[in-house]
């Protein structure tokens, strides 16, 4: 029997989870850099050099500023830096490095007729207000005494289907139960056109 293979240890980047050597091709090399400098300095010798130069620049900058207006400028600089980092984290990223577009918060209500005399009311977009769809569907079902279910709609988005035509007072119900949802962000779809409710 051959000697037992030992699992090899691979260094994975703590930021983007790729093996460290592939960080440069990863989704966000810029953010990996500090981690790489700390944990895998030998993989990217250029990076280290760059960082050193930058560091040197900063030090000299600071020295200058201290020389000009002792102390005060220093504090301002550090506060500006922290502000910058927190802003960066806010931006969520999709795979591929594209920025995520913030979706407009609106609830769209649509009536679909089936079997000529029966219809379904579809409510889309409640999740954008931080409402749990399963809870919402339960509440809707209870209020209107009909079946209400969470369904995967087109384009993989979840929506609530409620049996029956409840358009007449769903708006009131939504604004009453979830005060977060303003009336002006509720829309009906009538003849393929978006119409504001209320």
């Amino acid at each position, binding site marked *: 029997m051959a000697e037992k*293979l030992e*699992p*090899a240890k*691979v260094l994975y980047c703590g930021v983007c*989870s*790729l*093996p460290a050597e*592939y960080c440069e*091709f990863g989704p966000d090399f810029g953010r990996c850099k500090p981690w790489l400098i700390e944990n895998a300095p030998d993989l990217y010798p250029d990076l280290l050099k760059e960082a050193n130069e930058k560091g040197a620049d900063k030090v000299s900058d600071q020295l200058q500023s201290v020389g000009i207006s002792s102390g005060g400028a220093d504090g301002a600089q550090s506060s500006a830096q922290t502000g910058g980092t927190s802003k960066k984290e806010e931006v969520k990223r999709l795979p591929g490095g594209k920025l995520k577009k913030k979706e407009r918060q609106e609830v769209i209500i649509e009536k679909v007729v089936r079997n000529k005399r029966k219809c379904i009311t579809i409510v889309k977009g409640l999740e954008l207000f931080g409402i749990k769809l399963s809870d919402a569907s339960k509440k809707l079902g209870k209020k209107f005494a009909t079946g209400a279910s969470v369904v995967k709609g087109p384009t993989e988005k979840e929506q609530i289907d409620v049996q029956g035509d409840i358009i007449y007072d769903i708006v009131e119900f939504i604004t009453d139960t979830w005060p977060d949802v303003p009336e002006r962000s509720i829309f009906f779809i009538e003849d393929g056109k978006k119409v504001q409710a209320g």
Partner: protein
Amino acid sequence: MFKKFCLEEISSQNQVKASVQRRIRQSIHDEYPGLETVVEDLLPKKSPLIVVKCPNHLTLVVVNSVPLFFCIRDGPYMPTLRLLHQYPNIMKRFQVDRGAIKFVLSGANIMCPGLTSPGGVLDEEVEAERPVAIYAEGKQHALAIGFTKMSAKDIKSINKGIGVDTMHYLNDGLWKMERLD
């Protein structure tokens, strides 16, 4: 293959019966003789082996909630990249040139010229329709797992079009799913 892949895509996961486990273990054993000594550690007989089925005829073999192997239809079982990184010598190796890395990491299939150029290396023994590990010029670790479309000799002589289908690559959906609960 795994460009978009998340927990929602799982259609069923079962702990499979012993005979199926034996079959899976046997086929992995046959496919990767290099793993012979560690198969027992990877797929311990005691801990339950879970087979996760996903759309597109995709099956994952999961042990202790870590995905280890995947296969498509009745194709050969292929290790996930994390596993391959630990045991780099179990698969035949292809190497692509540096220019191709970017594309492979965004999920492109591997074109013949990327393998035949000076930065690329071909293992001449590889037949068509075999799993291979894709390495990159100047890098130590594999960056993708592929399924050859033509034999290595053909890749060399035709030198055009898709040579290897990329199945699983770094930072795709399966890679991000480190653990599966």
